[in-house]
């Protein structure tokens, strides 16, 4: 097949998304938060259905019921942790409280790779395009080993190794994402990433923060340009076309929207940003997307995803 450009677009409207957010909020308040898993499913359904690749929308097939099951498990787990802290406080022993909190921190750090693994498995299995499931094929113990090894290096280098940590994690996770039989690949390099951030940090200081937008652009470039997709016959490469000036425009307007609407404009911030991102990714290659085959299994355990939500850490991608 000849090389050509592929089209990725976001069609969502701020006002539509705004209504979804408000309705979800209303239902979450009435149900004291128990509606959350369904709210999340509705939100993802909308955002996926408004994103198209080659004229076909993505589909999120996860359901509120699945996520509710995970939500309850995650909730019980966290309630136990809280109960431990409260017991320690009520026993009134300062030393005991500190030990309990320390143990909880350790548990928290220990489960991060498990949460990452589980949420990728769920989210990818529930992502579909042209009837073809995505999938995450990473191995849990490999990810756990990588995570602890790099965490250790990061601690003993006072955070400097963090750049390598971040890239190794990204290389591993994205390198195990598939779209049917086509495989993603990310080739980030810790050294490059470190230099990029060091440069961004120093120049932002020197320019009193103005460079932050160009730093963002460099990060975006780095995340996009190193990503590719291949099947047996061809490849597709991603390239960012965003400029620092455009990033400045996006982020400043987003900031103003949030400030002047007292946060109510959040929906527009999301839709504008998604539109910006999709419009600034060029995709070129010779994969025949009509030849994808269903290869990835379904997976419906959403515990890790819910745990990630409760602990509030963003998705890595």
């Amino acid at each position, binding site marked *: 097949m000849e090389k050509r450009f592929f089209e990725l677009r976001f069609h969502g409207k701020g006002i539509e998304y705004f209504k979804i957010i408000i309705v979800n909020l*209303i239902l979450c*308040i009435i149900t004291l938060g128990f509606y959350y898993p369904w*709210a999340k499913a509705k939100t993802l359904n909308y955002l996926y259905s408004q994103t198209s690749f080659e004229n076909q*929308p993505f589909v999120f097939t996860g359901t509120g019921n699945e996520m509710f099951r995970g939500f309850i498990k995650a909730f019980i787990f966290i309630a136990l942790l809280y109960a431990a802290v409260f017991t320690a406080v009520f026993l009134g022993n300062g030393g005991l409280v500190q030990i309990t909190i320390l143990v909880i921190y350790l548990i928290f750090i220990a489960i991060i790779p498990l949460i990452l693994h589980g949420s990728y498995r769920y989210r990818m299995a529930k992502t579909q395009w042209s009837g073809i499931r995505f999938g995450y094929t990473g191995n849990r113990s490999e990810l756990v080993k990588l995570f602890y090894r790099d965490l250790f290096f990061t601690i003993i280098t006072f955070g400097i190794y963090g750049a390598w940590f971040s890239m190794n994690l990204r290389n591993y996770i994205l390198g195990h994402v598939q779209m049917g039989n086509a495989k993603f690949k990310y080739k980030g390099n810790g050294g490059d990433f470190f230099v990029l951030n060091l440069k961004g940090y120093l120049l932002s200081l020197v320019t009193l923060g103005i460079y932050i937008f160009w730093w963002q652009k460099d990060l975006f470039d780095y995340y996009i340009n190193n990503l590719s997709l291949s099947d047996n016959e061809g490849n597709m490469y991603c390239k960012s076309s965003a400029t620092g000036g455009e990033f400045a425009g996006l982020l400043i307007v987003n900031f103003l929207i949030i400030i002047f609407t007292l946060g109510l404009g959040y929906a527009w911030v999301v839709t504008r940003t998604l539109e910006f991102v999709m419009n600034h990714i060029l995709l070129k290659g010779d994969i025949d997307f009509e030849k994808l085959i269903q290869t990835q299994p379904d997976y419906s355990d959403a515990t890790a995803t819910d745990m990630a939500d409760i602990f509030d850490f963003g998705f890595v991608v």
Partner: protein
Amino acid sequence: MIDQYTVLFYDGNRSLPRKARIELSDQNIYLFDEDGTNIDNGVAYPLNNCSYSYLENRLFVYLEKSAHPYFVIDQTNPFYEELSNQLTNQKKVGWYEKLLQQKWLSLCIILILLISIFYFILTEILPITTVRFISSNQESTIGEKIYQSIITESKIDSAATIQAQHFADQLKLSNKYKISVTVLKEDEINAYALPGGHILINSGILKIMDHPEELVALLGHESTHINRRHSLKGLISNMGLSLFQAIAFSGMGGVGDLILKNASTLRQLSYSRSLEREADLEGMNLMLENKVDPAGMKMLLSHLQKSIKTSIPNFSFISTHPLTQERIDDANKLLLKHINATTQKQPELDIIWGLLKKESKEAH
């Protein structure tokens, strides 16, 4: 006629679509290949199991929960309208769908009403009802815990604390609670009360006072917060609010969070204003009970006002403390009422006051 029913069919095994014909009968969808053979052995897909979405004038109909197989029908297809209507009629309409049909403005109003109701319950009803279940002893235990955590982070002026406590012991400030005074080495002009009896006074506020009556006024004010369990109520409503925030708004983006934060600031303005006023008036009554000249309150407030003027300009509207001038006016009104009240100079207080002033000067 056959062309009308032609759709693009994705079978869920391959990404390659093929043309197919659909037929709708008895609320079921049947699919055929172009040559007329049944797809999936003529399986009937019930309409009410299907989900669908629209994108760019096309209707995407997902035949099963797994979202595959599915087909796409273009708006130009004459069958589009009918299929679209049938699907809409079949759709289970829950609360979510009903709400989503409303106008955005009505939705905002519903949301704001709901938040206000919960807000009222958590900040007004919950504290008043729960404090009844908390005994003074439990309250003191809670206050003691907060006290311990505060004093590990600040420096205590021990000499001044002894004198201030001695000073407070000469007065009758509370029937229920043991008032215990602590002076902190802090320049900020402030003092506050904890549930159960602790009063914390920054050395900064002692510096701006000239008369022992002002300290009585301050103690009277803070004791009122304690006697009326203001801080306990505040504590409970804060806990209720943060719990509410955590469960109802978790992961819902910035919206709920921001609304609540704004509401919280506004509430603190009015709530604490009314509480401060109450503490001023009741504090003056305590002064009268102790036969101390209530004019001390006015002097204290005037000193506060002066010190505020000499420091940074104060944007009173947004300040959580009521306007000092308003408070002075209120104090004046009460003073007029009690113009004939019997007060007497109390030599004990004067002596301790002298020592306290000396201590705080030496400390700086």
